[in-house]
């Protein structure tokens, strides 16, 4: 009887273990199978060389579908986002990336707009430096404009200009 009980307990334990491992297997299998959203998250950072300015996640051509399948395979194999992007970049050139990496000649792409804004700002500052009035000295002199009547005058004066 004890033997039967032990045998039953053993079989039950084996069953539970098998179920657990089976479930675990399924869970692991699910983990390895990336969702469409995970594929799209990487796809939208890539452009196929054939299509025109359409990111990979929005493109319906056969080539882009194959690329998305490749991303899915790489994700299943445990590759990281950066590794996958690097893979496509190595295979097809940096043009597949939505943004060129900030290195080499491409630094010029990223640095020129802020640099030109800086130059523009310096020119504006130079121009403003020539302004004739110092705000601090004027502050007390025109403090009387801080009232509502001044605004009435302003509106009326401006309207009179047109009348």
């Amino acid at each position, binding site marked *: 009887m004890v033997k039967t009980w032990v045998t039953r307990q053993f079989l039950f334990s084996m069953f539970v273990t098998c179920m657990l491992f089976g479930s675990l297997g399924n869970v692991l299998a699910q983990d390895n199978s990336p*969702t*469409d*959203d995970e594929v*799209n998250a990487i796809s939208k950072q890539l*452009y196929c*060389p054939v299509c*025109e*300015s*359409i*990111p990979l996640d*929005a493109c*319906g051509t056969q080539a882009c579908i194959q690329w998305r399948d490749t991303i899915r395979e790489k994700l299943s194999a445990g590759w990281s986002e950066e590794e996958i992007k690097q893979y496509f970049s190595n295979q097809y*050139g*940096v*043009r*597949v*990336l*939505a*943004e*060129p990496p900030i290195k*080499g*000649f*491409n630094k*010029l*792409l*990223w640095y*020129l*707009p*802020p640099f*030109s*804004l800086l130059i*523009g*700002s310096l020119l*504006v500052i130079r*121009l*403003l430096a*020539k*302004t*004739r*009035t110092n*705000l601090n000295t*004027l*502050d007390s002199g*025109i*403090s009387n*404009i*801080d009232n*509502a009547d001044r*605004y*009435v005058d*302003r*509106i*009326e004066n*401006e*309207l009179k200009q*047109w*009348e």
Partner: protein
Amino acid sequence: MIVNLGYTALLLALICSLYSIVSARVYINTNRYQWVDSARNAVIAVWFLLTLACLSLVYLLTNEHFEIEYVASVSSRAMPWYLKATALWGGQAGSLLFWSWLMSTYTGVVMLRDWSKERDMQPYIITASMLTLAFFISLNAFVENPFNVLWIDSFGNITASVMRPNANLMFTPKDGAGLNPLLRHPGMIIHPPMLYLGFVGFIIPYSFAIGALAVGRTDSVWIRATRRWTLVAWLFLSLGLLLGGRWAYDVLGWGGYWGWDPVEIAALMPWLTGTAFLHSVIIQEKHGMFKRWNMILIILTYALVIFGTFLTRSGVLSSVHAFAQSSIGPLFFMFITITFTISLVLLFRGWETLGSSKTLTSWLSREGLFLLNNLLFMGILVACFWGVIYPLISEIITGQKVTVGPPFYERTTGPQFAALLFLMGIVPLVAWRITTVNRLGHLIWKPTIISLVVPIISMISGVMNFAALLSLWLASLVFCVTIYEFYRGAIARSKSSGNNFYVALWLLISRNRRRYGGYIVHLGVVFMAVGIIGVEMFQTETQGTLALGERMHLGEYSLVYRDLTEFSANDGRVVTRATLTVYKNNKAIGKLEPQRDYYKDSMQRMTIPDIYSTLEGDLYVLLIDWKPVGLQQATFKVYLNPLINWIWIGGFGFILGTLVATWPDQRDRDILTNNKSFAQPL
């Protein structure tokens, strides 16, 4: 017959446009009035001739004359009549002709309406505008001829030309290739004309500017004369951009409205300089300052208009919008180089006379802040221009092809757009010449406190993204300040005149339309900014494959896949349409039917979304794929685009505000006609 009529009209239009240039030149040399009158008549004749050419082409398109190369390439029997007619601008040759016709309409109206104004400049205005028009007409006449007929020789070789080659017979295909499926959308009926009207419209203020430089005019009266033209061009360009965004949203199936595509940016660039010009020119009118800068801006706007047309049509850059590519690129490039050089030569020749003795009084003045506004517009322009041309530069210098996608533009222009919003928030409260910090603080504290309500409510609702909160606060600030400006002005008027508030508000707006029209446009910008913030910062998406009856979720919405049908449409499409029931918080609210169209003639596929649209946002559903056997499973991509409809609503603010600002004003007319020095007969 109609072909010959159309082509002859085109050639005569070219001859008349060249004649008008020569005639204007003869007047400049001889000072004999009849020459400039003759030039003006030639300009008007060009409009009649181009109208005839356009009508001829529309007739050929709507009557299925497939022996015409252009008709065979852009239309087909299955297309409805309105798409056949609008195929006028569906291909390279036709759209160039349409471009020329719109431009001749503008110049014709200027000749009829503004002939008595700025008469000393008229010969130069004619020269500048007709030189541009002659260039476009010659492209049509000699390179991209919409009236080319198809011919076939005894070996079966097909050629296209106006004249019949020896031993050839006319070839009439049974059907045309049809319009590019992407263009078979109601939005395309109106989007290109709007964009072209915007592009072409900027040629008028440019022509006036060239006229002013040529005769050495340093006053601002000519600017006043062209103000309405500039505003009209700006409005059409704005609407063209907006409609283009709506078309992309409805047709391209990427869930967005703006992809920072080179052609989109090509249309945005003249809008940026045009907007900077509209602000900066106010300072010239008020205080006679920034004359040189305004000249630079208008020349730049013109150059960018031509550059944008070049980009779209040359095929030099790849783009989803580059429908019409041909070998006209080098000709465009030459034209841009020549006109830009001539403009710069004229500008530097008049550089000294354009100088102003006046200087800025304070950085905290409306002039000073307008200068910052211009700096930011130029900063955005540089980023856009650089991003567009960088792939070419990289390929030429390093041999490496690169893609400059949305992340670059978003990072480089985003902070500058935010800074522009901030300026929009404070400039209305800043006076001309000088404002003190105290005064600004006194005026701004109330709207600032009220504006903080929006980011605070957003935070309470769970928004913790700093950039989003900052942007929402800026949009809210602009809204509060603008409304406060209307309120203060109306109260001030009401107190001084004794009128009730609403009458005072009406009088305030009607007597200073330009300022308050501008404020209405600013309110439109606020709505658009809210929409852009919603989509760019809070868009969510998911994709999944469903069996019939299965459900997928996104936010508070869920979708149940009900059905998939496949059928052939009358216009040659094979349509695969899915039906989904939409639930919001588990309550059924409607059904959506996204579809995939396959055009058999061109073998092109289009993914057409279906959208559940509310003011709160759009549920945007795409049918990505399906199992062909049994139609049991289908893959859907779903986007949740919060607040996106605020962008389109903002467009109405643009229209209303610009209409208010451009509405004819007797006082403007008085200023122009009272300026006797320019009202002399020639």
